């Protein structure tokens, strides 16, 4: 089974992601002034998007009375990130800490 909207979403986002990852190496962006408007907008969009998504993803947890697992899981993510600087390790460790604390 393959829904058309799932396929369309994967292909459209996949093409955009490919373009973001590959094309800046073709077009020399080093000439882009770091203090220029486009540089600032490009530089801010990623962090803004991730911050918005992080907040949106935690609001239901906090509102749903999962405060302890949330704070414990978040602390584990931050501690593991500071320790190893690995996104993968911090994610897995944070999720495991959340899981363990939600059983308490």
């Amino acid at each position, binding site marked *: 089974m393959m829904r058309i909207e799932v396929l369309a979403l994967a292909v459209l986002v996949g093409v955009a992601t490919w373009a973001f990852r590959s094309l800046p190496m073709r077009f020399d962006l080093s000439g882009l002034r770091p203090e220029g408007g486009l540089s600032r907008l490009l530089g801010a969009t990623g962090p803004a*998007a991730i911050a*918005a998504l992080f907040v949106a993803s935690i*609001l239901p947890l906090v509102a749903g009375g999962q405060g302890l697992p949330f704070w414990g899981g978040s602390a584990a993510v931050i501690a593991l990130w500071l320790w190893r600087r690995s*996104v993968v390790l911090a994610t897995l460790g944070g999720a495991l800490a959340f899981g363990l604390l939600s059983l308490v």
Partner: protein
Amino acid sequence: MTDQPSTFWGGLGAAVPVALGYFPIAFSFGVAATRAGFSPAEAMVFSTVMYSGAGQFLGITLVSGGVPLLVSVITLVAMALRHVIYGPTVLKAAGADARTRFAPFWGFWLTDEVFGAALGELARGQRFSERFMAGLGFGAWAAWGSGTLLGALAGGGALAAYPAVEAGLGFMLPALFLALLLSILSRAQVPVIAVAGLVTTGVTLAGSPTAGILLGMLAGALAGLARKGAA
């Protein structure tokens, strides 16, 4: 490794730590996708074509929540914008060895972790080559795809015997976002992050989580544009 330092196989070897981390996250993505009503084929299209962990987890939420396709695309594309600096940063670290002939090919595999692993290898004296980058990228992508396939085939009930792991699935996405946020955090981005977070919270609490995400992103990006001086 000093005579043949920069082969495809060398890159594949450097991918092992990334692959070991990717596999369980991809497995849990496969399980979560199945639970949200995705078929194994749909989960695999997400993992192989979209190939962006945070985007995929959010994508299954958006699709199962009935969010309009255009809104989902805008949200996920805005999230993916962070990748634009990865390629040029790796090339800068590669110095005189930098080549881009096959960049459209291996560039697709430049995820957050592959980018981090590439920078780490180059900092430890690894010489850059496009073959090495292809091996590193392919290894991570293959682990992501195979983990997804096994998770999707195992199905939604696969983790019932492991309640802590199953409960942890609910925090996989927030944990991934938080880790990504930490990885790109700089002093210049603090106002951007604060504005995006506050606007998202306000609009979401006022009743619309989808509008909250979009307006939060927009407000944060504009806060970055409005900022004078430092990059």
